[in-house]
């Protein structure tokens, strides 16, 4: 044994020793209640010792001789494939029984269709679900706690996430009630009448990919989606002014009641959230 080999052998033994000790250490740490960082370090040293020992053993103490092996072409040639084709078809007599072949294919196809149909049980047909939200005429605007929202609770430039009463947290009913102020709003037609006292309500579901439009830059009057930065102009009907969204956030028609709470005049006039192919067809 050469000196180099003796040194390598000692090194390998030392590595394995480290593994043994840290392994025991791991048990100790575990027994004493565990600690993520300490266990991580011990586990790493434990595994690392084993790995390093094995690699040093392979590199220093085993033959590193370069070996050579012949490589033969993969295929067995035309005879081989002909023999396979013959074995597959000869006894079965496929070429003579075209009718039966067709019949078998038809039967298998029918069976496959019958087996595939239960896939439809995985989910209901979408129906009108993408066109509708829980908002109805007369729905009161409530917060996450299902308590009615009061106009005087929202200061100028304030924003509140609201839901139809009875549906707090609703995914497609989530709406932003914004105190934009009458002087800044530039809404046209019906939309202008749906903003009583400078309060305007838009769907909170981004018309791009459906994230909640959670950021409001009050100074610019812009709503921004944190997912993909679609930006909507609150003062002009939430039309998109930057980013990938192409549709405005639908506006919820609301009215201010005498007690300071809000009610909806009906559902959104168009589908909320991301677009889908027949949203214009079936409107």
């Amino acid at each position: 044994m050469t000196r180099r080999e003796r040194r390598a052998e000692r090194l390998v033994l030392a590595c394995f020793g480290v593994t043994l000790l840290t392994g025991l250490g791991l048990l100790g740490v575990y027994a004493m209640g565990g600690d993520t960082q300490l266990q991580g370090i011990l586990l790493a040293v434990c595994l690392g010792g084993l790995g390093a020992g094995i690699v040093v053993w392979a590199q220093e103490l085993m033959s590193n001789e370069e070996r050579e092996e012949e490589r033969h072409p993969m295929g067995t040639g035309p005879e081989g494939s002909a023999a396979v084709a013959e074995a597959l078809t000869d006894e079965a007599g496929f070429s003579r029984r075209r009718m039966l072949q067709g019949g078998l294919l038809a039967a298998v196809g029918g069976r496959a269709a019958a087996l595939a149909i239960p896939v439809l049980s995985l989910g209901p047909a979408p129906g009108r679900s993408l066109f509708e939200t829980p908002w109805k005429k007369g729905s009161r605007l409530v917060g996450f706690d299902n308590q009615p929202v009061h106009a005087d609770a929202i200061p100028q430039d304030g924003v509140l996430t609201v839901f139809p009463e009875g549906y707090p947290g609703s995914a497609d009913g989530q709406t932003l009630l914004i105190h934009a102020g009458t002087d800044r709003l530039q809404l046209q037609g019906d939309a202008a009448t749906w903003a009583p006292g400078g309060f305007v309500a838009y769907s909170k579901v981004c018309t791009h990919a459906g994230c909640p439009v959670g950021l409001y830059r009050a100074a610019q009057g812009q709503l921004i989606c944190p997912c993909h930065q679609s930006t909507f102009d609150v003062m002009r009907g939430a039309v998109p002014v930057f980013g990938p969204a192409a549709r405005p956030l639908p506006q919820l028609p609301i009215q201010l009641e005498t007690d300071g709470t809000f009610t909806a005049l009906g559902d959104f006039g168009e589908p909320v959230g991301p677009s889908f192919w027949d949203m214009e067809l079936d409107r």
Partner: protein
Amino acid sequence: MRLRRHREPPRVDALGRPLNAPARELREAEARGDVATARAALDEEPTELERIAGWLDERTGLASLVRTTLRKVFPDHWSFLLGELALFCFLILLATGTFLTFFFVPSAGDTTYQGPYAPLQGATVSQAYDSVLHLSFEVKAGLLMRQVHHWTAVVFVAVIIAHLARVFFTGAFRRPRELNWLLGFGLLVFGIAEGFTGYSLPDDLLSGTGARIAYSAVISVPFLGPYLASLAFGGEFPTAAFLPRFFVLHVLLLPALFAGTIAAHVGLVFLQKHTQLKVGRAREDNVVGRHFWPGQAFVSGGLFFLTAAVLALLGGLVQINPVWAYGPFQPAVVSSPAQPDWYVGWLDGALRIFPPFEPVILGITIPSVFIPGVVVPGILFTIVGVWPFIERRVTGDRAPHHLLDWPWEAPFRAATGSAILALFAVLTLAGGNDVLAAFLQLPVEGLTWIFRILVIALPVVVWLVVYALCRSRQGRPAPGEQPRGGVALVRNRAGGWEEADR
């Protein structure tokens, strides 16, 4: 280890002559391959190892196959270990993932959090989220296992891509290995799908938002979208069905597909033998390297433990996916900034920088998510998946290849591969445009415009530059090759200089 041992002392007959058969008889028996007679002639008895091997061989007949396998030659170059690293990550994912399944509850049902994490005490959370918090804070070594699992997943996809790049740029996918390229490509897709489904399971705010975006991408497919989305998620998002479904995909269907495809992938490498770099004695009709046993097997085994060690260190010391900080998923709540795991970042980046384009054609809406979220990734991945066939069409090269190209030897391939990598890099960075904007103190709008330009310009520039570099590199000697031509001066015995041929 010695496989044979002689009995001591040798047996003798009554006249003291050794019972050993004459040497000639032994030679003849060995020439016939008659091990039993040869052994009797040598008066040896089988060792314990031989006895076990014999017992198994009699029942399987695999002895010669095992011997061939042990003597298989593996090329000795570090870049050939990338695929092994991916395999090791898969094994570590299986081990840590199995531990996690013992604690994870795949249910969207509501419960009230009552664990030790004070900020969430009393909050209504899903049972899935509750079980992840329990695993992280109350199960001993639970957080370590979870973090090692997540880190391994993150590294896994990176190593798969590095392996894919090695195979791509050296042309290892050429005939007869097109099939194995397709299998490997499938593994990349499964890897991303495994990552995304697994990352969605804790039902935290960040991953819930990601699932919401995935639902929007499915819904955007013309004609089929709303139906596909409803079938996949069990109704309109969010549904109670989606967590258990993602769970089944993540721990059952995808791992089964993975295991089967890995077996086929590695099996094909075994049958076809490795490709090799053009160095030393390597030729088209041989394989040069180390024997599988013991050299290669020991190096691989050691590498496995070293990989596990690095991942254990990451999992122990570097926090990843702290779902308690994100909070439970609520459809009407969102966090900012919001970034997915890195291998999905390019998809998110494509969604971020695509212009607001949503045409209505004959009453049919093409949603703004459809092109960047479905069409572009579909085209990019198809190009990568069928690359061997594209290149064959372009170059007309249908010959089998076992010797690898140096990357610069195929400028079209190298340029196209680099351009695709550049495209993915730009998209991935664009997926963090809000974070970058904050870091660089730039308006996010301006940065998004920079990305919109870069995503077109950078791949084109990279293509041209890499193509030109490859062309200029051609003709120069390859690594390890002596420069051809020219004159070398050699010192002669008289102390003068002489010209020598190279």
